[in-house]
């Protein structure tokens, strides 16, 4: 069996088991209402995590996504409330700015030959700083488009709501899956994550792909910012503080190898849902406190890092002995 899929199977099994146990304890959790909320509440995290998946698949890391989300919400609020733009125009501007920002980080990572974490760290400072320079205070957004969007949803049997932003997230995941597994760009991302030297020797355009990866990540972070803006109807520079860690955790728990080359976008979806499930369970339980989310996520993260370590180091050792007498 493909060893790369083993962490994903573990995640899926853990998710199913956790969900079943939660349902056994609180039968109300088995409803389309809960599922609908799970999707809506984690929409922005899911969208950003798709971008993060590509970054981690290529062997990098993007610490700037939370800050880009925060910046985007502020930019959109400023454009709508102060400049008077239509929300859709504001979204387009925000996405273009985010894309350019990501392209600049990708170029810096490739051409300056510095670790991605330090470049995206600078990006994080820059985006947060720029957001608070735009407006240090929270800006509420009032626009008929926002109320229209919040009223637009598909009613699921059982009373659950599939909201616009939840559908948007599902769409982004579908897009991510196709991009990763069915396009040349996706093949190049996996190639760079597998071995950058081999990839370059095999003719992969490393510079173009690296810039593309970070552009994608920032654009999706920008889109997550759009969703966050729709979700909260406000722009604030400290929105989504530390969200990059949740996104990284979702990707890793979803079975993507932190050193790159192995993983599936679909796994990230399960990673996001597992995080959401933990939160939902804690809300249902009522006695557990919210900090357990962080501890459980940290524990899962640790478990999966060790699991990957075991799977990939033992198979590497096995492979080494193949071919020697």
């Amino acid at each position, binding site marked *: 069996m493909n060893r790369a899929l083993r962490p994903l199977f573990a995640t899926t099994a853990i998710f199913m088991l956790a969900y079943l146990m939660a349902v056994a304890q609180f039968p109300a959790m088995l409803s389309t209402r809960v599922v609908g909320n799970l999707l809506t509440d984690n929409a922005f995290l899911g969208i950003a995590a798709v971008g993060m998946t590509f970054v981690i698949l290529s062997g990098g890391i993007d610490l700037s996504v939370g800050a880009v989300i925060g910046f985007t919400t502020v930019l959109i609020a400023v454009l709508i409330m102060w400049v008077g733009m239509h929300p859709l125009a504001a979204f387009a501007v925000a996405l273009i700015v985010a894309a350019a920002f990501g392209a600049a980080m990708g170029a810096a990572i490739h051409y300056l030959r510095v670790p991605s974490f330090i470049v995206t760290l600078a990006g994080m400072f820059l985006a947060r700083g720029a957001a608070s320079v735009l407006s240090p205070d929270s800006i509420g957004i009032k626009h008929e488009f926002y109320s229209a969007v919040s009223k637009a949803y598909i009613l699921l049997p059982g009373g659950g709501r599939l909201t616009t932003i939840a559908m948007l997230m599902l769409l982004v995941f579908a897009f991510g899956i*196709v991009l990763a597994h069915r396009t*040349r760009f996706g093949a190049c991302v996996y*190639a760079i994550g597998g071995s950058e030297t081999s990839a370059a020797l095999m*003719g992969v355009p490393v510079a173009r792909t690296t810039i593309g990866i970070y552009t994608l990540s920032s654009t999706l972070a920008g889109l997550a910012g759009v969703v966050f803006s729709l979700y909260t109807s406000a722009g604030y520079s400290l929105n989504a503080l530390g969200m990059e860690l949740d996104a990284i955790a979702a990707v890793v728990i979803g079975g993507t190898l932190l050193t790159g*080359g192995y993983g599936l976008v679909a796994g990230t979806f399960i990673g996001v849902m597992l995080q959401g499930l933990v939160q939902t369970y804690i809300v249902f339980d009522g006695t557990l406190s919210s900090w357990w989310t962080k501890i459980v996520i940290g524990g899962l993260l640790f478990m999966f890092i060790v699991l990957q370590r075991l799977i990939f180091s033992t198979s590497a050792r096995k492979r080494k002995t*193949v071919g*020697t*007498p």
Partner: protein
Amino acid sequence: MPQEHATLLRATGIAKIFGSHRALDEVDFDLRAGEVHALLGENGAGKSTLIKILTGAYQPDAGQLEVDGQEVTFRDPQQAQAHGIGTVYQEVNLLPNRSVAENLFLGRQPTRWGLIRRREIEERARELLKTYGLDIDVRAELSTFSVAIQQIIAIARAVELSGKVLVLDEPTASLDRTEVDLLFKVVRELKAKGLGIIFITHFLDQVFELSDRVTILRNGRKITTQALAGLDATDVVRMMLGKDVAFDHHLTGIDAAARGAVRVEFSQMGRAGSVAPFSLTLHEGEVVGVAGLLGSGRTEVARLMFGVDGADGGTVMVDGKPVSIRNPAQAVAAGFGFCPEDRKADGIFGDLSVRENIIIALQAKLGWFRALSREDQIELAGRYADMLDIRAADHDMPIKLLSGGNQQKAILARWLAIDPTFLILDEPTRGIDVGAHAEIVRTINRLREEGLALFVISSELDEVVAYSNRVVVMRDRAMVAELAGADLEPDAIVRAIAGTGPAQAEARP
């Protein structure tokens, strides 16, 4: 047969200079269609530099390349590939994490509306590999296959993309016999199709088995290009290693009996897949030389002795007492020292000063809290720098700024500073200038006279003969012969390495 085929690739007067080092000097090379042309030489002979020039990874400083009679210049490997030259390296340069099919078609996947047509790729990959006699699941991850299969997949990709010249850079280094046969079958079929194949290996029997002609390089110069039909293994080894073998050996007239008491005793040390179990006793005031081609297991023996790799079994006795050597720190504690072959990767601390590089092993042996004072460091570094004539303007300058020879002397000084009982030197004179070379040989002789036990690996036979009391010969990851006394002369070593000497009990299949 090959004579009637056209010349595919011709290189004339190729030179390449790195800094002050002349890696290639006026080298000519030609490759005909439908031949396997072996390229032989020890480390530093220039074969990898030549290959990198032929495949576009390096640009020559002089000389010209012709493909099909047309003069060409390659700016990068992609350009060489476009001219029909493909390469397969020892460490397979494919993507271990992707499927076989994807590895074959990366960069040229057929698409429809921007989407990769995966089924078509898989179908074509399956058919392509069938022509190589492989019927495997092309959807499986590359790393799940043996290295031999991976090599064949790499060959298939290279031939698909280039299709005229195939360079095989040590493709068999980690294959077993059946895998080698599988690979050779593929190579012979490609040869029959008219491809020109450059074959680099350090297994002589494989050279004879597969190749039509051979080019031998030594110290950046071409020694010969000729048909293998008229040669035997001894001739080839002699051309690879010897000056002309008629050199003045036993310069110092070592008295093999002048050695002292037993110092270090290794018995039944070995490591599966690396070195067959060996036993070796070293005496005070004795130099044991090690001869053998690259890949014969000579470095692996040194690594086992020093605890860099863990031995599967066996014991070590120092001065009659058993010691445990599971890691280099224990080896240093037991009084061992090791100058590794890859000076840059395993030897020097490039950013640290010459002085710190010299005292570092002694400091490691003393532990964290018994720090050498600055005065002690200066004194030690000064003493050993004088003793070995290490030329540095200042002992506080980073060692990476020194020449290779001075770096090597500094590493030797590092071990002399711990006052060792046993010293392992792996290719101590490779890639360094003549003056440093002489200084290191002088030092080896002096250390022997001072009563050290030394284990010296070298592919310079004249040199090994000149300073060794005994020479052990390695072939195919085992110690196969030991020469001493009157037998200790280069020609006998050459015969033992080639497997044709009298000391040989067994021959390789």
